[in-house]
C-alpha cells in the first residue's frame, strides 16, 4: 500500500461506444491539489470518461483505483469523498431548493457548520429558497445543483459541464470556489466548452481522443 496514489488512479482504461473505440489505454493519476480539464469534440467520450471515473459505468478494460483500492472495493471510502454532478442535475422541479438540497445532503453527507440556507445564499439564490424549482430559470436550477459544492465534504469533485447556462458572475464565483477547494487539498475533474481560469492548483488538460495529459499554460 506504500506506493499507492494519494488520490484517484486510472489504470489503462479503455472505453467503446457501439463498435467505436473512444479511447484506449488511458492512464493518469489525480492527486490532491490537481485539476484535470477534459476536452474534446462532441462525442469524443468526455462524459463516458467522467462516468467511468465516478464508478457509474464500467470501462471495457482497466480499473479505477482510489488510494490504491478499487473504487467499488468494500473498504474503499471513495463514495464518501466523491461529488459527481452530471448533465442531469438531479433536481426535482416540484421541490424547493431547500428541499432538494436537504435530500442531496442526507444522501451524501456534508459539513455540519455550513447550512443549506448559507449555501443558497452563497450561490446567489437568496430569496428563492421556498419557490418550487419549476419556477426558476435554467441558470437558477443549475445553481441549486451547484449549491451542493458548498455543502459537501468530498475531496474529489467530478463535474460535467458545470457552466452550462450560468452567467458570468456565477462562473467567476465557481472558479473562486474551485481555487479554495484545490488549496484545501481537493481534486477536480471538469469538462467545459467555455474557457476555464482557475487561479490555483496544478492544472493539466486531457484532449480526447489523445490519451496524453498536457500541462496547461
Amino acid at each position: 500500500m506504500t506506493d499507492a496514489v494519494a488520490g484517484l488512479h486510472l489504470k489503462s482504461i479503455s472505453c467503446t461506444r457501439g463498435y467505436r473505440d473512444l479511447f484506449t489505454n488511458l492512464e493518469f493519476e489525480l492527486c490532491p491539489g490537481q485539476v484535470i480539464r477534459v476536452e474534446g469534440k462532441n462525442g469524443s467520450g468526455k462524459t463516458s470518461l467522467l462516468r467511468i471515473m465516478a464508478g457509474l459505468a464500467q470501462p471495457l478494460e482497466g480499473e479505477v483505483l482510489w488510494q490504491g483500492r478499487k473504487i467499488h472495493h468494500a473498504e474503499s471510502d471513495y463514495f464518501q469523498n466523491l461529488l459527481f454532478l452530471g448533465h442531469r442535475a438531479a433536481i426535482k422541479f416540484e421541490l424547493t431548493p431547500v428541499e432538494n438540497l436537504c435530500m442531496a445532503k442526507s444522501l451524501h453527507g456534508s459539513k455540519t457548520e455550513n447550512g443549506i440556507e448559507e449555501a443558497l445564499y452563497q450561490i446567489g439564490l437568496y430569496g428563492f429558497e421556498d419557490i418550487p424549482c419549476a419556477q426558476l430559470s435554467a441558470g437558477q436550477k443549475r445553481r441549486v445543483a451547484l449549491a451542493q459544492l458548498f455543502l459537501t465534504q468530498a475531496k474529489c469533485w467530478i463535474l460535467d459541464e458545470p457552466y452550462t447556462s450560468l452567467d458570468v458572475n456565477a462562473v467567476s464565483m465557481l472558479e473562486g470556489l474551485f481555487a479554495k477547494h484545490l488549496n484545501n487539498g481537493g481534486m477536480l475533474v471538469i469538462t467545459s466548452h467555455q474557457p476555464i481560469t482557475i487561479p490555483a492548483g496544478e492544472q493539466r488538460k486531457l484532449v480526447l481522443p489523445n490519451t496524453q495529459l498536457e500541462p496547461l499554460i
Partner: protein
Amino acid sequence: MNASVQTPSTLSAFISLIKRDLMLSYRHRNELLNPLLFFVIVVTLFPLGVSPEKQLLQTMAPGVIWVAALLAAMLSLDTLFKSDYEDGTLEQIMLSPHSNALLVLAKIISHWLVTGVPIILLAPLLGLFMFLPGEGIITLMLTLLLGTPILSLVGAIGMALTLGLNRGGMLLSLLVLPLYIPVLIFSASAVDASMAGLEIKGQLYFLGALLVLSITLAPLAAATALKISVE
C-alpha cells in the same frame, strides 16, 4: 475518518428519502388517482357486465377484486423509478455511500404507502359492491395487507430491469405477472375459504413467508438491476 466529518447516518438518509418521495407524491396527487380509479372501475363494471345476481357476484368477488388490485399495482409501478431515472437522482442514489439496497427499499416503501395502502382502504367498499360477507371483507383486507407490499417489491425488480428500455411496459408485464400469480392464488383462496368458514392460517402463513422473502431479496435485486440500468 476525520472526527469533524459528520456523515448523516444511513437511517436518516432512508427516512428523508421516504419523506421526499411522499412529498413528491403529494404534489402529484392526480397521478396517484389513476391506478386507484382503474381498480374501482374494473370491479364496479363486473356486476354490469356479468350479472347483478348476489350468489354469482359473491363467488367471483375474491378473484375479481384481487385481479383488479394486481393490475392496478402494475399500472402504478411506472412512477416508481422513472422520474428519478430521467432527472439523474438515481445516479446520485447509486453514488451515495449508503447501502443502495436500503435506499431502494425506502423508495419501495413510500411507493407502497401511496399505492398499496389506498387499495387496502378501498377494498371493503368494493367488497360490499360484490356482496362479500363481513368475514370475507376482513380476510380480503388481511390478504391485501400482506400481498400488496409483495406486489410493490417484486414489481420494483421488473421496473428496475426495464428502466433503460424505451418501451419496457410489455416486457415489464411479462416479467412481473408470473411472479404475482402465487400471491393471487393464495389470497383469493384465503378469501374463499373464510367465506366457507374454513381455516385461513395456511394461506396467510404462505403470504407472510412470501413477504419476508421478497423484503429481504427484492431490494438487493432491484438495486443491482438499477446499477445496470443507470450505466
